[in-house]
């Protein structure tokens, strides 16, 4: 949590003032938050280049592909718009996964929660008619959020009531959601008229997240989900580090024994944390349907719920870290497409590099070994040696 020193009243004794001064470990946290991911990214690009070389891609093409990647992610207004558009669902779902992590839960089910949330949003956005955008849009987003929450809460309830491990149950709920989506998309009240393949009716205009850069260029896809994403980052930060509920989540995640000791009800905490995580993933699905896709199709989530796990890991389950990690992954996504176009290198390479980044972040000791000067620091004092 942020260490703001306080200055209440002039009568504070000096010893107390000293105790209220922030602890000096900002440098090491900076290192953890930024240098490690950057070093990991560098290594991932290096290995990516090696793989390309091994598959006899010419060095010039490799260089060109990295340039294309930079160009496609941040090189133009269009690129930035694409990066941000890709980041929105990653950050939203990532926040949910990160929050669950903080509470000691491994929510693998963001993908499934996105699917049911997005599907519910789609249904609400073409079956409810006659509302203004001011009512209809919030309604469809809330429906997606609520259905995602309920879906994730199933896994929470199973764990709280029977001890079923959330990893197993969320994986199974993912499978169910994918089949459920295919099944539902063939129901007459959902399937687009005149189509035999599974595809939903289109989202009504009143339920669409407006494109916010349309006034500049009609091709810019960035939508108002950006504001939802930024608000979610702030809300989750507040929840985790300022609210009573978030404190209970964090105690439960850090030390279940201490949570029990503190009288925190484990079952309730699990269900609540899962529900909030699911709400965020559901919202991610909702913004995709309402802001980007305009309909639900089989596999419309495109594995974003799984990439979001990586985003949460990379962001160290911190809302701001998740925001940055989501932007990075969004940039890789957008840049990868450009790389494929410009240099003819398959977008699979991006998937490989994303995975490599996560491996290096998950194995910080390895990165420290490779770049010792970046991490040279004395061990913090006071560690117990007895």
């Amino acid at each position: 949590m942020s260490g703001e020193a306080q200055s209440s009243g002039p009568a504070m004794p000096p010893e107390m003032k000293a105790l209220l001064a922030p602890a000096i470990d900002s440098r090491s946290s900076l290192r953890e938050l930024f240098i490690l991911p950057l070093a990991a990214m560098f290594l991932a690009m290096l290995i990516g280049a090696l793989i390309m070389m091994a598959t006899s891609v010419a060095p010039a093409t490799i260089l060109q592909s990295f340039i294309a990647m930079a160009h496609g992610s941040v090189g133009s207004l269009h690129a930035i718009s694409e990066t941000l558009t890709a980041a929105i669902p990653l950050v939203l779902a990532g926040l949910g996964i990160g929050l669950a992590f903080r509470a000691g839960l491994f929510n693998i089910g963001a993908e499934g929660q996105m699917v049911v949330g997005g599907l519910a949003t789609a249904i609400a956005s073409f079956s409810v008619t006659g509302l203004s955008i001011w009512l209809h849009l919030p309604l469809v987003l809330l429906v997606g959020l609520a259905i995602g929450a309920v879906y994730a809460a199933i896994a929470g309830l199973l764990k709280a009531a029977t001890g079923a491990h959330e990893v197993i149950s969320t994986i199974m709920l993912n499978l169910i959601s994918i089949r459920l989506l295919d099944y539902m998309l063939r129901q007459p009240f959902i399937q687009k008229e005149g189509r035999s393949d599974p595809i939903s009716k289109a989202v009504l205009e009143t339920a669409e997240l407006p494109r916010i850069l349309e006034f500049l260029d009609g091709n810019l896809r960035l939508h108002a989900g950006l504001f939802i994403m930024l608000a979610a980052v702030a809300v989750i930060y507040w929840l985790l580090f300022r609210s009573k509920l978030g404190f209970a989540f964090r105690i439960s995640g850090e030390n279940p024994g201490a949570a029990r000791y503190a009288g925190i009800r484990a079952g309730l905490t699990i269900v609540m944390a899962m529900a909030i995580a699911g709400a965020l993933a559901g919202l991610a699905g909702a913004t995709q349907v309402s802001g980007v896709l305009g309909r639900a199709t089989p596999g419309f989530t495109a594995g974003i719920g799984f990439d979001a796990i990586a985003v949460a890991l990379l962001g160290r389950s911190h809302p701001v870290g998740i925001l940055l990690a989501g932007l990075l992954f969004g940039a890789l996504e957008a840049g990868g497409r450009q790389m494929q176009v410009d240099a003819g290198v398959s977008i699979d390479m991006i998937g490989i590099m994303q995975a490599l980044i996560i491996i290096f972040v998950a194995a910080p000791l390895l990165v420290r070994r490779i770049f010792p000067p970046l991490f040279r620091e004395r061990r913090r004092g006071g560690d117990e040696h007895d």
Partner: protein
Amino acid sequence: MDIELRGISKRFGPVQANQDINLDIRAGEVLGLLGENGAGKSTLMNILSGLYSADSGEILIDGMPAVFTGPGDSIASGIGMVHQHFMLVPVFSVVENVILGVEPTSGVDYLDLEAARAQVQEINTRYGMEVPTDALIEDLPVGIQQRVEILKVLFRSADVLILDEPTAVLTPQEVEEFFAIVRALRDAGKGIVFITHKLHEILEIADRVSVLRQGQVVGQGDPASFSEADLAEMMVGRPVSFSVGRAEATPGDTVLELAGVSLFDAAQDARLVDINLSVHGGEVVGIAGVQGNGQTELVEAITGLSPATAGKIGFAGQDITRTSVRQRHRMGIAHIPEDRHKSGMVGNFTVAENMVLNSYYDDSVTTGVQIDWRRVHARAAEACLSYDVRTPSVFLGAGSLSGGNQQKMVIARELERDVKLIVASQPTRGVDVGSIEYIHQQLIACRDRGNAVLIISSELDEILDLSDRIYVMFEGRIAAEFDNRGGGADRNAIGLAMAGVNQGINRDETRDETRGSAA
């Protein structure tokens, strides 16, 4: 085999764990190694057992320099370590545990259990250890399990045995038997390093003593030439008073009353059987007993962590048998948990966060659903000052405080509130002597303010020092009750009660045995 440590130094980051240590370990001698937690005893012994390598200095075995690159080298040189926490497989027999890792085999990986058993039995009888070699570990009492650990190192032909805090888990009677085994080993020519922080044990068993403080040897010699006070002063670096100046208790009204409380665990084994006890305001009641005889469950029943299966718990005139943990906490029950790392604190949280670990929801530190961190920080700083928690900042991670300061932090959190009953479980475990003194004073001060104090400790000395009345627990029951006003309780009788021999004030003992496998 003689071992000399010459100028051993070891540094962990800014912490100088060992500095230029010289130590002689001689065959046929017990060397007492005395020091507080964090004095560097474990680091030194880990260097000797090959787990760490020293930054400088050398180890001479019978005059020859030895280099250990791992624990294997140390074992091969004849050094055996008996850890404080046993490393035994509960479902294996004694013989299987002893030979684990050095199994005698013949032919193609055929386990020659017969040969092993004969060898183990031979060692067993030579030193009079009386371990049933075919019993499963889980069926054996802790004292015997410890002997299995010793058998393990002897089986690996150790000539030097390092015993790390060996008496921490034993009853006074078991300690006597254990000392007999140590003497037998010494007389057979083994060199023994006996690590402890208990002074009277050093005086009883050690032939020589070395005292460590802050990584340095600050004194050594013949224990007979030192008094307990001398040793304590060397260990802490200043004079220490052991007996807490404790005035006569003036018990008031009953604050806590347990009537016929029983508790069954998930497997329906009885953990507590018909517990009747009371604690009055203005008195300290101690619960003595060997670990695992129901003390943990008793604390859980009182604090609400595990609701009692049967019986009634009364607190300040109210029935709290079914009251939640949080509600009991609010009513004024403070709980210092037995294991601060497992439940009393969160190492990755700041000191300030730990100070509101179980009161973060309270109106005094919240506005609506939001925690008012400014108030929390200010309060935490105050609590640190008034309870001597030494930390540079309340924003420091609690995990980087010393054990003593962590425990003082827990105690500050619990005592700073308005409480009526303090349930202090192992209040000084893993805490330096200076902090022990301080914590004891705080607990007595609580009593003198008219609060009820219940202390649960496996350190009998602590119970005897602090308590006005003492209950002894054995196999989930109250086995005996003793009056200790003015320190009059009979240590020997308590020890016998701890071992299950009933000698105290009579208690009904006609019920059949229904206990679970408390171990």
